[in-house]
């Protein structure tokens, strides 16, 4: 019995990390954009394009690392479009984000048709190799999971730290935060608000693209239509839940990932029958919990200058 429990615990941790990684990466992306004052509800579209371009590049070159890079570039390209519309042309952020989601869905499906001749699923692509750290596998209880994790999961923890460092300990991070909180002060300091915002939105596209690439070349070994299945929106919720901070995004993402993988564990603990019958309710738990948490625990505070295009001549 002890063995089974330990194994189960290991599975739960591994599964949590696997489910949480795309959410955390995309949430960090959304955070950068929103910290700079640009609402980014288009994460879903950027993730889709990231997943698709990673799969295509991996398919043609058989090199998943190159695919990862192309996936990030794909997400960044779509983010650039969002940045141009929102920052340069002072468009409505939410409307543009809606457009980005549609564009992402449209481009990837047509791309599927062009590259693989169907609009459902791509052919199998090479997976990113899992990281093996033999020294860690000796650790009791959780040692067994280390051989099964994607390098992006380790990368994700590094990215959280880097994001925190960049945002709170570097001048560029300060500028990004200032662009979202008080753009006119930043402008007075002689910094171009528009450039900072464009940079932040592109950064958010890179992270969302990475999250998408993880889905198509590491989590699964193929791209399928609409494979992000709402993860971009859940990432958005994780970002708000995490109060627009890197560590908050990490915790919220891990929490959502944990709830998403709870079903597997409950299947073992409670028996398959009950879980199949009431599985829908277990899947509902994260959504309901988020509502309860957001309504009950504390109020989220978005950046002050969010969704307001910055006009140089206008004084607040």
């Amino acid at each position, binding site marked *: 019995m002890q063995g089974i429990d330990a194994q189960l615990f290991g599975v739960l941790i591994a599964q949590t990390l696997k489910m949480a990684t795309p959410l955390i990466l995309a949430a960090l992306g959304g955070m950068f954009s929103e910290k700079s004052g640009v609402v980014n509800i288009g994460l879903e579209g950027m993730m889709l394009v990231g997943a698709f371009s990673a799969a295509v590049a991996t398919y043609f070159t058989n090199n998943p690392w190159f695919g990862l890079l192309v996936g990030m570039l794909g997400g960044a390209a779509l983010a650039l479009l969002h940045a141009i519309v929102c920052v340069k042309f002072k468009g409505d952020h939410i409307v543009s984000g809606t457009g*980005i*989601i549609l564009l992402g869905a449209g481009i990837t499906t047509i791309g599927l048709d062009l590259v693989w001749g169907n*609009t459902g699923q791509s052919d199998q692509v090479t997976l990113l190799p899992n990281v093996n750290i033999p020294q860690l596998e000796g650790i009791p209880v959780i040692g067994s999971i280390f051989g099964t994790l994607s390098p992006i999961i380790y990368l994700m923890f590094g990215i959280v730290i880097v994001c925190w460092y960049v945002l709170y300990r570097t001048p560029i991070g300060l500028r990004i935060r200032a662009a979202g909180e008080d753009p006119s002060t930043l402008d007075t300091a002689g910094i171009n608000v528009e450039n900072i915002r464009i940079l932040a939105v592109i950064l958010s596209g890179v992270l969302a693209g990475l999250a998408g690439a993880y889905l198509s070349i590491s989590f699964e070994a193929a791209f399928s239509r609409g494979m992000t299945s709402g993860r971009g929106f859940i990432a958005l919720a994780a970002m708000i839940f995490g109060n627009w901070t890197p560590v908050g995004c990490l915790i919220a993402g891990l929490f959502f990932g944990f709830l998403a993988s709870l079903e597997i564990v409950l299947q073992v603990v409670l028996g398959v029958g009950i879980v199949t019958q009431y599985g829908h309710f277990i899947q509902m738990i994260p959504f309901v919990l988020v509502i309860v948490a957001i309504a009950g625990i504390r109020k989220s505070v978005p950046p002050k200058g969010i969704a307001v295009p910055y006009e140089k001549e206008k004084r607040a």
Partner: protein
Amino acid sequence: MNTSEINVKPKFNLIKFIKSIPKSIMATIDNPTFQRQAIATVGSIVLAMLIAAIVMLMVGYNAGLGFIALIRSSIVQWDRVLFYATPLIFTGLSVALAFRCGLFNIGPEGQVYVGALAATIVGFSVSLPFGIHPIVCLLIGAFVGFLWGFLPGLLKAYRGAHEVVTTMMLSYTAILLTEWLIKNPYDDPTNDNLVQTISILPTAELPKIFGIFLSWALIVAMLVVLCVYFLLNKTVLGYEMRAVGMNLEAAESAGINSKRTVAVSLGLAGALAGMGGAAEILGYHHRFRKDWSVGLGWDGITVAVLGYSNPFGVLFAAIFFGALRVGGNSMQLIAGIPAEMVVLIQGLIVMFVAAPRVISWLQEKGTLELKMISIDKKRGMPHFITLGITLVCSILGFILLSSISVHSPILGGIVILSSLIAIAAFIMLFMQSESGFKLTIAAGIGWAIVALLGIIYAVNILIIGTVFAAILLVFPLLSLLVIDDKKLENGGNE
């Protein structure tokens, strides 16, 4: 005059209201804001279609046939257009109503689901006379949808919970909950393969008005458009909603109970979506099946955006989206273009709608280009020709891509790169930036490399590459020389 007469409120006169509609429509058309929005919308649609056509050409679809199929079918199959538009009118109004109160209802999908299931359950379990039954079902659907929207409304008003998160989370919850309900208590016992409920009673069905698709649901939708217009523009609640949407603090200091208004608006938004789900079941599906709604709620967001959150705008946007959907289907059938092309077109339209300044910017740069051609021929003509050839070369590059990359993926990569550089050059040239010429030369060099590699792979690649490289290199170099001449004339400084 005694006091009781003064205190009598002016009675609402339906006939007067209906008579006032044509007048207010005329007033709207004369309104410059409306005209600007209309121009921006039409411009967005035209531009999106243009870009879609270029994309279709690039990736090798038969764009001409595709567009003929799209336009033809959306006129010939007008009943299907209206059929697809009906639920989008409801969900679009739902999002639009919330937008007007400054709220973003991102979860109409779930509200559609709960409304539809509630209507289905009443439809098959309660026995009511013909004529009353569908009305009861619609109202029950709207009521359940109202509850599904009112909860996030309350949370927003009294707990400050962001409605984007709560409505979305409730939307996922609704989809799971309805799926569980139709799998367990309300499962159709006669069919084990499909997850669905039993059919609603014939008395509950909304009768068809034309063909096999179009039902009374459309009429209900039209009436609801009028109701929402009336609510927003002629009632106190509508006034309060718009006031809260424009400026919450100002509305509060004017004595409006903004908390109540927020909660009620999200509730009404939910009711509209719920009624839409009910009408869809009563009018066409007649039973609740798993995943029957193909993203009706999500499309509602786009419809509301395109309709500028105006009830009549939503009506037209929904019909337009219906037409696109019907057109997309026949595009796939006739021209072999995936129906998702339509999603791309929708996305492009929304992007343009998001930033009306793009259109005025394009206008500005376009007139600048024309001016340059007519006034400064020596500089303008080469510039204009270079502009043209960068676009044509990039399109041709993508068309030729598949036949070139057969020989070697490296060749294909270079062709993609040169074509992308050519597009960038086109954009830079259009922006009147001198770096456009340099980018054009870069694209030309890319093709020259293709030509050189063509010596190894095939003769026809050598020929194509040489021609492209020559065209792309000659004109920008010529223009740069012209500009240099100008500089010389002016003594080195412009």
